[in-house]
C-alpha cells in the first residue's frame, strides 16, 4: 500500500465521520458518541498495554476522576465545563503521576494487580465521599458550550467527540514514530536491554501511564457532559476490564485498533441487549455480562492478536522510502589513543556464597581492542554486567573516562558512552531493523514528548534515521532496513546488535561473544569491521569471546579470567604460551 492509498483511506474515513449525522438516525449517532468516548480510553490502553506491556485494569477510575471533577465544577458549583475539563485533566494526571511513581517499579503481574487495587479503591471513593452524591450520583450536569452554541443535541457533541478522537489518533501515531515512542515500543520484553540503551525505563513508563490517564480524562469529561448524569457504576472495575477488552479486541498496540475495538464491543453489547431476551426470555441484565465475558474469553483463546493484526495480514505492506541523506548527528570527541579509558580496580561480586568476580583489576586504554577470555564459569559475563551497570559490585571501583561509575545507573553509564551487546541476543523482534538501530541513538537525540506528539522533531528524526541506515550498511545489513528483526538468522541478529550499539556513537564498545553463531566468512568480516572501527573511528573495544582463532588475530591485549580471578594479562602471543592459561583451558598439559 502506498502512502497515497493510505492518505486516501484516511480522507474517506474522515468524510464518512463528517457525513454520518446526515445519514444515520439519532440513536446510531448516540451510540457512536459512546464509541468515541470509549475509544479514547482504549487508545490510551493500546499505548499502555499493547505498546508498553503495562496491563491496567484501572483506567475506568481515571475516567471517573475526570467525570466527577467536571461534574463537581459544573453541576455543583455552577462553573464552566471548560474549567471542569482543566480540573479533570489536572487531577487525573496528578493522581496518575503519583500512582505511577509508587507502582511502576513493580514487576510483571504485580503491577497489574496493583491497578486492580487502586482501581477498586478509587471506585469505592466515588460512592462514599460526602458531597459527590454518594451512590445516587450527580444529576443535571450542563452541556458543553463552544462560544454561544450549547452542545445539547447528540449530533452536536458528536462532532466534538470525533474531532477529539481524530486529533488524539494523529498525535498518538506521531508519538509512536518518535524517539519517546520508540522507547515505549521497546518496553515489552524486559528492562535490561532498554536500560542498556541509555533509556530511563521508569520515566518512560511514567510518561506512558500519565498520557494514557490524560486520554481517560478527556473521555471522562466528554462522558459527563454527554450523559449529563454520573453515578459510580460506570467507573468501577467491571468497566475497567471492558476497556481492556476493547483495546485487545482491536489489537493491542494499535491505536486505530482502540477505536475499532471500542466500536465492536459497544455494538456487540447493544446487539446482546437487543436480542438476548429472544433467546432466554427470563434473562436479566446480568446475562449480558455472561455473554460478553464469554465472548472475550473465546476471543483471547483464539485471536490474541486482535482485529487489526488479522486484517493487516491481508493488506499489502505500506511501502516506506529508504531514509535519505540528512544532517549527521553530532559525534562525541574520542579520547586520544593510549590514554586510560576504563579502570577496573579490585572489583568483587558475590552471589550468596559464590564469588563470581574476585578482586579483579585491569585497564582498558583508548583505541585498543581488549579481549576478555576464560573457560566457562570464569566470571566474564558477570564482569561485563558490572562494567555496564547491569549488576552492582559488592566492593571495588570502576572508573570510566575519569568518572567513578561504580554506583551509577545503567542508563547513565550508557549515556556516558559505553554501548554493549548481549550474549543472549536482546532485540525487539517485532520492530524493524532500522527501528532497532534507531533505539541505539536514543541518548544522542533529544526530542521530548511534546515535540514528538506535534511532530516538531522532523530534522532530528531524519538525521537519526539516516544515521541508523548508515550503521546498518556498515555492518552489512543495509539492504533490508524494514525487515523485522525477528526474521533475521541468529548470526545476523548479533550483527544487528553491533549496529545498534554503534548508533549510540559510543566511546567504548563492549561485545559479549559477538562471533558466536557466525560462519567462518562472517567471522572474518566481523573482525575486519572491528579493526576498522578501532583504526578509523578511534573506538575502544572490549570483547568476551570463546573462539580463540578469532580472538588471537584481532585483539591488542588479552585478560584471562579463571574461577572469578584474573589469571594473567598481556599480548596474545605471551598469553598463548603461558602454562597457567594452558592449564586452565586444558586441565594441565604436563
Amino acid at each position, binding site marked *: 500500500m502506498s502512502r497515497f492509498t493510505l492518505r486516501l483511506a484516511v480522507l474517506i474515513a474522515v468524510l464518512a465521520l463528517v457525513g454520518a449525522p446526515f445519514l444515520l438516525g439519532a440513536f446510531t449517532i448516540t451510540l457512536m458518541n459512546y464509541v468515541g468516548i470509549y475509544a479514547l480510553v482504549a487508545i490510551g490502553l493500546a499505548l499502555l498495554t499493547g505498546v508498553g506491556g503495562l*496491563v491496567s485494569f484501572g483506567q475506568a477510575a481515571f475516567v471517573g476522576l475526570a467525570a466527577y471533577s467536571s461534574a463537581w465544577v459544573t453541576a455543583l458549583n455552577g462553573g464552566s465545563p471548560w474549567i471542569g475539563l482543566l480540573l479533570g485533566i489536572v487531577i487525573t494526571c496528578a493522581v496518575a503521576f503519583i500512582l505511577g511513581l509508587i507502582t511502576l517499579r513493580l514487576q510483571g503481574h*504485580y503491577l497489574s494487580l496493583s491497578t486492580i487495587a487502586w482501581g477498586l*479503591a478509587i471506585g469505592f471513593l466515588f460512592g462514599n465521599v460526602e458531597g459527590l452524591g454518594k451512590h445516587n450520583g450527580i444529576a443535571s450536569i450542563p452541556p458543553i458550550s463552544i462560544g454561544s452554541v450549547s452542545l445539547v443535541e447528540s449530533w452536536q457533541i458528536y462532532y466534538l467527540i470525533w474531532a477529539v478522537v481524530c486529533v488524539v489518533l494523529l498525535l498518538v501515531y506521531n508519538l509512536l514514530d518518535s524517539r519517546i515512542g520508540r522507547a515505549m515500543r521497546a518496553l515489552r*520484553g524486559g528492562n535490561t536491554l532498554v536500560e542498556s540503551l541509555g533509556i530511563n525505563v521508569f520515566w518512560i513508563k511514567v510518561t506512558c501511564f500519565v498520557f494514557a490517564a490524560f486520554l481517560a480524562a478527556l473521555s471522562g469529561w466528554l462522558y459527563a457532559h454527554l450523559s449529563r448524569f454520573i453515578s459510580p457504576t460506570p467507573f468501577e472495575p467491571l468497566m475497567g476490564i471492558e476497556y481492556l477488552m476493547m483495546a*485487545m479486541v482491536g489489537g493491542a498496540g494499535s491505536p486505530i485498533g482502540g477505536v475499532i475495538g471500542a466500536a465492536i464491543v459497544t455494538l456487540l453489547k447493544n446487539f446482546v441487549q437487543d436480542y438476548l431476551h429472544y433467546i432466554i426470555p427470563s434473562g436479566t441484565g446480568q446475562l449480558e*455480562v455472561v455473554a460478553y465475558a464469554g465472548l472475550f474469553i473465546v476471543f*483471547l483463546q483464539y485471536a490474541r492478536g486482535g482485529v487489526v493484526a488479522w486484517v493487516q495480514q491481508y493488506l499489502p505492506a505500506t511501502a516506506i522510502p529508504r531514509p535519505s541523506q540528512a544532517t549527521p548527528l553530532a559525534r562525541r570527541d574520542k579520547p586520544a589513543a593510549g590514554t586510560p579509558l576504563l579502570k577496573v580496580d579490585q572489583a568483587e561480586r558475590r552471589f550468596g556464597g559464590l564469588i563470581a568476580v574476585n578482586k579483579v583489576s585491569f585497564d582498558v586504554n583508548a583505541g585498543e581492542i581488549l579481549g576478555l577470555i576464560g573457560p566457562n564459569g570464569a566470571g566474564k559475563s558477570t564482569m561485563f554486567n558490572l562494567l555496564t551497570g547491569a549488576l552492582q559490585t559488592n566492593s571495588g571501583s570502576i572508573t570510566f573516562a575519569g568518572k567513578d561509575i561504580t554506583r551509577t545507573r545503567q542508563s547513565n553509564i550508557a549515556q556516558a558512552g559505553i554501548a554493549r551487546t548481549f550474549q543472549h541476543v536482546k532485540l525487539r523482534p517485532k520492530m524493524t531493523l532500522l527501528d532497532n538501530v534507531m533505539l541505539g541513538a536514543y541518548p544522542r537525540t533529544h526530542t521530548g514528548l511534546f515535540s514528538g506528539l506535534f511532530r516538531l522533531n522532523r530534522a532530528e528524526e531524519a538525521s537519526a534515521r539516516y544515521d541508523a541506515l548508515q550503521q546498518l550498511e556498515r555492518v552489512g545489513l543495509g539492504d533490508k532496513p524494514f525487515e523485522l528483526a525477528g526474521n533475521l538468522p541468529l548470526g545476523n541478529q548479533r550483527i544487528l546488535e553491533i549496529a545498534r550499539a554503534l548508533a549510540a556513537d559510543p566511546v567504548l564498545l563492549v561485545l559479549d561473544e559477538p562471533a558466536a553463531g557466525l560462519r567462518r566468512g562472517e567471522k572474518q568480516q566481523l573482525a575486519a569491521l572491528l579493526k576498522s572501527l578501532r583504526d578509523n573511528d578511534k573506538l575502544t573495544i572490549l570483547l568476551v569471546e570463546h573462539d580463540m582463532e578469532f580472538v588471537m588475530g584481532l585483539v591488542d591485549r588479552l585478560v584471562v579470567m579463571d574461577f572469578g580471578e584474573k589469571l594473567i594479562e598481556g599480548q596474545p602471543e605471551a598469553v598463548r604460551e603461558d602454562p597457567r592459561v594452558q592449564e586452565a583451558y586444558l586441565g594441565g598439559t604436563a
Partner: protein
Amino acid sequence: MDFDIASILAIDGLASGAIYVLIAIGTVLIFTVTRVVFIPFGDIAAFTALTLAALEMGRLPGTAGLVVVLAGMATLVEVVALLRNGRAHEIPGALLYYLALPLALVGVVWLSEPLYQSSMVLRILFSLILILPIAPLLDRIVYRPIADASVLMLLIVSMALHFALVGLGLLFFGPEGVRTEPMTDAIFEFGSIMITGQAALIMFAAVLFSGLLYLFFDFTLIGKSLRATAVNRSGARLMGIRPERSGTIAYIVGSLMAGVSGILIAPVNTMFYDSGFLLGLRAFVGAIIGGLVSYPGTAIGSLFVGVLESFASFQSSAFKDVIVFSLLIPILIWRSIVSVHTEEHDEE
C-alpha cells in the same frame, strides 16, 4: 477504643481472617501449580453458601444447573479437541470423566432429597459435592486451551471469567440474599472476652484444613506431584507427572477449601450471588502478602487482612474497602522488591 472493644474487633477480625485463609490458600495452590491467578475462588465460596441455603429450604440448588451446563461445555470442548488431534478413541473416557461423573454427582444430590432434609451434615456434604466440579470444569473450558499464555494473559482471562460467573450466579441463584442456620449456639467466655461458637468453628476449620493440606503435600504421592509441578512444569512432565492432571487436582483441593469457607461464613454473613468478589479479593490480598508462593505467609497475611478490615470498619465503615485495597499497594511494592524476577519470563 478500650480493651473490650479492641478484643471484640480482634476476634471478629481473626474469624473473618480465617475465612480468607481458606480461600487464599486455594488461590496460592492454583497459582503455583497452573500459574493462573484464579480470582473466581470467592465466587466458588459464595456459591457454596447459596447452595447450602437452597438445600436448607428443600430446593434443588442452582449449582446443579450450573454444573450441568459447565459439564456440557467441557465435554464439547474436550471432544472437539480430541477429534482434532485424531484421538477419537479417547472420547468414551472423556465422556465418562467430563459428562457422566459431574452428572452423577448432581443426580446423587437430586435423588437424596429426603436424606438431607433431616441432617445438616449431609447438607454440607452435598453442597461440597455440588461445588467441587465447577472449578475443574472451568479449567478445562477456559484455561486449558491457553495454558501456555503469560501470567498476565491468564490474569485478564480470570477477571473476565469472574464477571461471567457473577452473571451466571444471578441467573442460577437469583438476587435474594441468604443466611443459613447457625451450626452452633455455644459461646465461650475467657474473662471478659467472649468467643462465639461459630467464630471458634471457623478458626478451628482453618487450622484443620491448613494442617490437612500440609499432610497432603508432605505425605502423599499426589501431593508431592503437585509440588513438583509447581516447582517446574517441564521437569515434572519428564518425571511422568501430567501437569493437566495436577491442575485438576489443585482446582479440586482449592475448591474444597473455598467451599468450606463458604459454608462457614454463610450463617454469619448474608450472602448474595455477587458476594464472592470482595471475599475473594480480600483473600487475594492475603495471598499476595505471602507472595503467592508461601502458605504460612498467606495464612498470616489473610489473618492480618481480616483484623485490619475489622478495625477499619469500626473507624469508618464506608471506607473500609478503600483502606484494605489501598494497603495492597505498599504490600505489592514490598513483594516486588523481595521477589527475584527473571526476565526470561517476560513476553516479547
